């Protein structure tokens, strides 16, 4: 694909804005880490050598303890296995990830439930929460949930907002009028109340997973995008390059997809960081209030709530708060830079 000269210029300007571009690189790096979380933070081994065979348990099936010479049928405890192999000196070994704990794992099974402070010797770099789960693991997997949620959120909000807003702006008339009223009424519905009602109305046992949560949040978030798309489409439609295409005989599909949308798309990009921040914010808020992801799914909101409830274990709230602030600040810097690089007043090349 060949980028238009505006797009190239915008890209160059974005790269030249050090703070925003740097934030972008850091965020990309952190996202990659989160997507590869199992290789960095996990209670499953990266590599096991047992009786001459190699095993890669990370993404594979569960190995019961018997597979590696233990006497139990549930999943192997790889940390214990590592210690045992080391003691046996039989040529078997286990390679654990950097942090050998899982996000939902009680790291001190059989011991008291109590938050433990950061302890590098045991690999709990940020300590544990009140039920002995490693905080770094929960942060990283929680970040991944946030990212997946935001990605789904952005895609769905954009898809719905663009489709409906574009149709309103392009076709106008009664469709536009009717949709405007529906959107107005819809945006007046109290979001939190509906979330609580939906949760209460779910049959017992139904899990309120990422997908359903996403659906409910998007159902309330798409309206903002339609306002913008409607007016942007309306404005572009009344410009002469569209008239010129119509005089040549172009139909609505061609006009919309070949002319109007590409001209709006660059403005949509500038919204992207702010939409992402909104998605992370709403997921965290819902989790904090207990209406978000079901336990034990790792999430930042849940960690914040636990932290504020256990202020005598300040490492919990500090980790969650710092992580959240850091990510939101990165996104804000990126958003600022994109906006500056795309500023229509600056990128309009003639007039």
């Amino acid at each position, binding site marked *: 694909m060949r980028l238009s000269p505006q797009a190239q210029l915008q890209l160059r300007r974005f790269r030249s804005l050090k703070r925003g571009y740097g934030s972008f690189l850091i965020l990309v790096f952190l996202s990659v880490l989160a997507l590869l979380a199992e290789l960095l933070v996990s209670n499953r081994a990266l590599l096991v050598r047992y009786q001459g065979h190699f095993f890669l348990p990370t993404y594979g099936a569960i190995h019961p303890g018997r597979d590696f010479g233990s006497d139990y049928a549930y999943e192997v405890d790889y940390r214990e296995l590592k210690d045992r192999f080391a003691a046996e000196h039989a040529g078997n070994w286990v390679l654990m990830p950097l942090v050998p704990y899982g996000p939902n794992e009680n790291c001190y099974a059989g011991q008291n439930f109590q938050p433990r402070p950061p302890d590098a010797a045991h690999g709990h770099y940020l300590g544990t929460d009140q039920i002995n789960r490693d905080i770094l693991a929960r942060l990283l997997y929680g970040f991944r949930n946030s990212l997946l949620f935001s990605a789904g959120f952005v895609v769905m909000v954009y898809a719905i907002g663009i489709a409906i807003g574009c149709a309103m702006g392009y076709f106008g008339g009664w469709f536009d009028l009717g949709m405007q009223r529906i959107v107005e009424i819809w945006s007046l519905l109290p979001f939190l109340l509906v979330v609580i009602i939906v949760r209460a109305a779910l049959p017992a046992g139904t899990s309120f997973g990422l997908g359903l949560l996403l659906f409910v949040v998007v159902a309330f978030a798409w309206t903002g995008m339609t306002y913008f798309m409607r007016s942007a489409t309306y404005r572009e439609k009344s410009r*002469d390059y569209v*008239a010129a295409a119509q005089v040549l*005989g172009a*139909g609505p599909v061609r006009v919309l997809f070949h002319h109007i949308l590409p001209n709006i798309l660059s403005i949509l990009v500038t919204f992207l960081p702010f939409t992402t921040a909104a998605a992370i914010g709403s997921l965290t808020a819902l989790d904090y209030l207990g209406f978000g992801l079901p336990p034990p799914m790792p999430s930042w909101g849940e960690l914040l709530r636990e932290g504020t409830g256990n202020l005598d274990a300040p490492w919990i709230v500090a980790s969650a708060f710092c992580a959240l602030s850091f990510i939101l600040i990165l996104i804000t810097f990126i958003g600022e830079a994109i906006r500056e690089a795309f500023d229509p007043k600056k990128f309009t090349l003639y007039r």
Partner: protein
Amino acid sequence: MSSPAPILEVRDLKTHFPVRGGIWLRSVATCKAVDGVSFQLLPGETLGLVGESGCGKSTLGKSIVRLLAPTAGSIRFEGVDLATLGRKKLKPIRRHLQMIFQDPAESLNARHTVGQILEEPFIIHGIGSAEERRASIDTLLDKVGLPRAAAHRYPFEFSGGQRQRIGIARALALQPRLIICDEPVSALDVSIQSQVLNLLLDLQREFHLSYLFITHNLAVVKHVSDRIAVMYLGRIVELSDAEDLYARPRHPYTRALIAAIPEPEPRATRPRFIGTGDLPSPINPPPGCPFHPRCPHATDLCRREPPPLRETSSAAEPSHAVACHYDLLPAAIPSPLGAPQKQESRDT
């Protein structure tokens, strides 16, 4: 006198816009942008359409190419009435009926290369293979005097005059027979206006094109037009042979427009009665003659009855129609052309 069949015949065309208000956007008033326009255009002819900004020239042009749906009247293009045709039936006709816009910066999609812009007409109508289309683009660029390498560049890389050449090339692509030129040089530097006008005239001769040439500038239209229509508040108030219009303007509005043309050697006193009152709104046009609030000769009849466009010259002379109740002597009207014109005047 037997004349060839007109390529375009507009009859009693009206294009009204509803002015909406309230939350249900009910129509609260009507903007009569074009309100009963009739004229003919012959093959190879240029009809100039002049009038102040806001008098409905663009609306008329856009109605003819059916960018707008007319409220009433007919638009016969080569015998077919376009006024009520749907998009599908219009599409094949659009090849022969094109438009050039005022501001090429607005009318060329900034995200497309010149090549893409010029290829679009062929793609829309499914004409030619990719290779044939490329050859056609080269030919078009030659015709409008741009280098062939322009195809790979973007509109903003060109000057205003070059960009308008791109717009002209696009309009020419499908070999039209009629082109609506909506202020094609008004956005350009005065120094390059004549180059673009000459290009339009050359192309007209080469392809036997008809032009409806819209402008608010009487000085420009004189150059290029065979006949001129003067428009005021959605209506044609005078329609005549170009020479005759300048030599013997009959409508007070036309005389005022001609008086307002900047002259090479400005006279010390240029009468300008048109300064009295602004262009009234087409939303509530005045009753009777639309020009009466600004006309120094207005009578009660003018305030009551709208004057029809009527023929004022004898059968032997070229047609000269005017929409005024009176045959006004030039002497009665302050006009810079007044003095030398006096003895020629037949109006009584």
